[in-house]
């Protein structure tokens, strides 16, 4: 078994214009690998668990960086670092849910390099898959984790169609909760997707975690004013307090009027391959007081349909507890 810590031989493209990057991505299609901060990329490539003929390094494209105010909210360049997202005054003021989520990703060093686009587009977490085993997601015909003896403490509770890998992004649930729009460009133009539709579960596409197609580049994230300055709650539970993935996280936005919840969006991460929006809970608490009693009444609803594996049963009470705290806070 080889063990590597140098990069494989591959072509490297370093465009500085979006248009050039799109041309290269279109030409290379499946043979190309987009990289922003590289915090997910380098592990895959250096471990040789995935390969590509060429790397398209987007980090030199200044146009993809920064936070801009728009007529209906803000637009964040996909290459904006997580540190910049966490510290941006506009985001902190209006969308503190996202700044809080970005501030707890991994470690300060990783946040200084890692980008918002990369954080939401990172591959799912499953140590079998990331070790390069030939599982369903890797094109094989079995799942190593979803077995009685599988080591699946970090894996999914929901929507586990042949794959129980979990999404570990901390910013993705926040963007879904904020009803963000993902801006995707290709040589043929621009298309947009809601954040909720950007993330793809294994039942739809087991080999990809986002709706990005070969030749496309996520260029920006737009957050509408709809949820600006709402009551937000974000919490991440991980084994370590820094440099660790979520065991479960929750991102929630509430519109409260006179102590009553008029609307909400509650999203959990690390419980399935995509951020899981808790629509049933949102509906159940609409018109209810934001209180511990309301929270307690919907806790089990939050995990309805959950299927515990051999070692991740704790995620059910953890998820319930986090949803309760989000509603109570």
């Amino acid at each position: 078994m080889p063990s590597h810590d140098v990069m494989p031989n591959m072509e490297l493209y370093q465009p500085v214009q979006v248009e050039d990057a799109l041309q290269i991505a279109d030409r290379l299609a499946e043979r190309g690998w987009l990289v922003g901060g590289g915090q997910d990329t380098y592990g895959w490539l250096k471990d040789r668990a995935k390969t590509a003929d060429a790397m398209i390094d987007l980090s030199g494209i200044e146009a993809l960086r920064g936070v801009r105010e728009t007529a209906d909210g803000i637009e964040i360049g996909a290459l904006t670092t997580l540190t910049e997202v966490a510290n941006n005054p506009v985001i902190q003021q209006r969308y503190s849910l996202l700044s809080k989520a970005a501030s707890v990703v991994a470690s300060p060093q990783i946040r200084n390099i890692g980008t918002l686009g990369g954080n939401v587009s990172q591959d799912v977490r499953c140590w079998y898959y990331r070790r390069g085993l030939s599982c369903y997601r890797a094109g094989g015909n079995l799942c190593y984790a979803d077995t009685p003896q599988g080591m699946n403490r970090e894996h999914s509770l929901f929507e586990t169609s042949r794959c129980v890998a979990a999404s570990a992004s901390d910013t993705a649930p926040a963007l879904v909760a904020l009803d963000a729009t993902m801006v995707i460009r290709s040589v043929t133009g621009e298309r947009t997707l809601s954040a909720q539709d950007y993330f793809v579960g294994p039942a739809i596409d087991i080999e990809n975690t986002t709706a990005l197609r070969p030749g496309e580049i996520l260029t920006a994230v737009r957050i509408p004013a709809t949820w600006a300055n709402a009551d937000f709650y974000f919490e991440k539970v991980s084994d370590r307090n820094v440099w660790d993935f979520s065991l479960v996280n929750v991102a929630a936005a509430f519109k409260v009027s006179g102590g009553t919840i008029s609307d909400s969006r509650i999203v959990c991460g690390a419980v399935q391959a995509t951020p899981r929006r808790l629509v049933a809970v949102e509906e159940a608490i609409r018109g209810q007081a934001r209180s511990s009693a309301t929270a307690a009444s919907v806790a089990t609803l939050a995990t309805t349909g959950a299927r515990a594996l051999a070692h991740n049963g704790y995620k059910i009470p953890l998820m319930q507890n986090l949803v309760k705290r989000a509603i109570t806070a």
Partner: protein
Amino acid sequence: MTTHIGFDFTPPDIEGKVTGEIKYAEDYKREGMVFARLLTSPMPSGRVVSIDASAALRMDGVVGIFTADDLPPVAPPGNPALASNYVTYVGQPILAVAALTEEIAESAIDRIRIEFERRPFVVDPLTSLTPGGANAYPEGNVLVRTREEGPEGAPIVGAEIRDIKWPQSAIDGLVNGKGPIGATEEHFTDNWQFGDLDAGFAAASVIVEEPFVTVGYPHHSLEARTCMAYWENGKCYFHGSSQSQSANDNSLARMLNIDPADLVFINEATGGGFGSKIGPYPFMAISGNFARVLNRPVQLRITREQEFYIGSARSGMQGWIKVGAKPDGKVCAVDLVIVNDGGSAGGGSGNSSAGHVSLCYQPESMRYRGISVYTNTTPRGAQRGPGQNEMAAVLAPIMDKVANQLGMDRVAFRARNAVDNNGWYGGQSGPVTSAYMREAIAQGAELFGWQDKLNQPKQLPDGRIRGIGVGSGYHGAGGRGYDGLVRIGTDGKLYIHSGVGNLGTYSYAGTCRAAAERLQVPWENCEIVRGRTDRHLPNSSGQGGSNTIFTHTKTNWLAAEDAVNKLKEIAAADLGGSPEDYDIGGERVFKTADSSVGMTYAAAAQRAIELGGKFSGQEYPDDINPITQRSVQGLAGTGLIGVARDNIPGQGEPPGILVGFCEIALEPATGKFEILDYAAVADCGVVVHPKNFANAMRGGAVWGVGMANLERHVYDPQNGLPANTGLYQSKPPTYLDIPSISKSGAVGIADPQNPVGARGIGEPTQGASAAALQSAISNALDGFLFNRAPVTTDMIISHAAGLDPVAHLKTNTF
């Protein structure tokens, strides 16, 4: 009144470490050097049928391939540098490829094809002991020491792998907390007992029996080990990452099949070892021998993932303990069973675990039964307080339960049983050099505010639950019989030659202070000579087992004492009178009655050279080690030589003892806790270097958090693959997982068997911290026993939710 011992100073390599100027093994390059990389086993157990390296060898830039056939055979299961036939764990090195660049070497490895034959494997020791369970080796699952009657009654001591299976009743009994029912003496490899166990339990008013599990975990020192070797004029120059210096000489020379005199081992600095780099590790044999075969320098730098595989790891334990205590709190009986996970090299530490129990609680009677079982997992070896620390962690809440059932304060219970100067250790009930654990407990309780914290409400205003805990740590902390070597130059400077490795603890420098103290030389006029064999270093202990402070303050003191005696002899010969008429001070030797009559150290050194003989190293004591003899020969005629073997009479174990206290705020809903306060007090004799002592206390406490809460092996029982080979996956504590401030102190009573009164303390700092934290977690949860180390986030959540937090008694798994 001391001038060096007990005072802060700056070790000479600090600046280089801060600026990055200091060199680690990887930083050394040599003209013509090639880079080697390892190809390792992808499976936990199998046989290498064939190797096809033809495509790799045809690549431009590939200069050679090196297999087990190029090395002397190693009898199984000796953890060979390269697997020769059977592979017994994922990541076991099979061959090395050397190339002009690391990139070429890695690409070449991708082109090598190996045909394997798969064998059954096992990742859990109890599974292997179960009737019909798989064995890690074809020959069996346990290394058994043998002793046969040889010619003329001389015993022949050996070892062989045997297949040992337990009756199912013993497996079930252990798992269910009833002990290994039906197991007999031959089902264990370690058996010892002292006192009348039955009478002990009969006298007990409280008896607690519990199963327990501790999970092993890898080292992951910051510096992934590197070796670079080259040969010149029949000598091997070897740059290696190691905890030790002189202690490597003989073993590494054997690996290279050369006379130790032909080895120059070079180690300026090492980025951590913690027990994994005490002596030469197997793959050191590759770079040295490969360099000889290729006749060019070879550097072998392993990856972080390979550090997980071959960088050694802590052994896990599955066990059972039964403790009996009298109404006054005295522990009167302990029955302890430990099954160690030895990984593929068999290294278990059960006997040390039992030693921890015996020393920290001084039971009136005790039985220990242990066995270390091979598994097809990464080789296990020493890791900071091996055996003692994980025992401390898992034992603390169990002993809390005993105290609680007695209706006794947990701290008072520990003080009741604490070791003192009349204490003993282990199965032989051997003595200790000195021990003031009771004083450490009292001082620690005061520093922590134990009584105040006991009286504070358990429920915090923010909904979290307060837990307070206490734990003890212990490790043997000293050795005897090594050599010291100093030289006073004609420049008047004191050159302290040290064979102690620079593993990051700065003990190499701290121990040299003893020589400066004895000769009363200002530190700025001292120079530590170290880091390369050819700098003429004495025979020193390996830097493991927290021994260095005790061991080498002695050797350096004794070498300095020898120099003092020679100074006086020279002065008497030149200035009249007898040596007894002279004293030293101010870097002079002078007449006690008239200090104006004397000479400087520089002048005395010049006279030593002129006099020759013992004064300047042409002659030396017969009892010094051959390593030291060679070094004295190398220094002969260059100044006044002080050299001595540590022949200070003494007996018993020099114990390093620590008592830790921890306060946490625990949140059952998330399984998380915050460490609000941590305080620890050491009984380690006189503190040599206060700042370094405080650093050691902090560092050990941090790692204790890892042991108690975060770090563990995870192996998949389906395929034998490890799940957490990376640094981030192994989860050592980060700066946000530990308290920002911790308090530490020392009892400070001198050990009578050390000239400066010092003992070591490095290793127990982790065990006491882990124990105190586990005790605090249990306390927060009303005395609930997880009986595991680590207690992880999910276990606390599950317990709070009424789920079974610990589904089984397995090691290497979740």
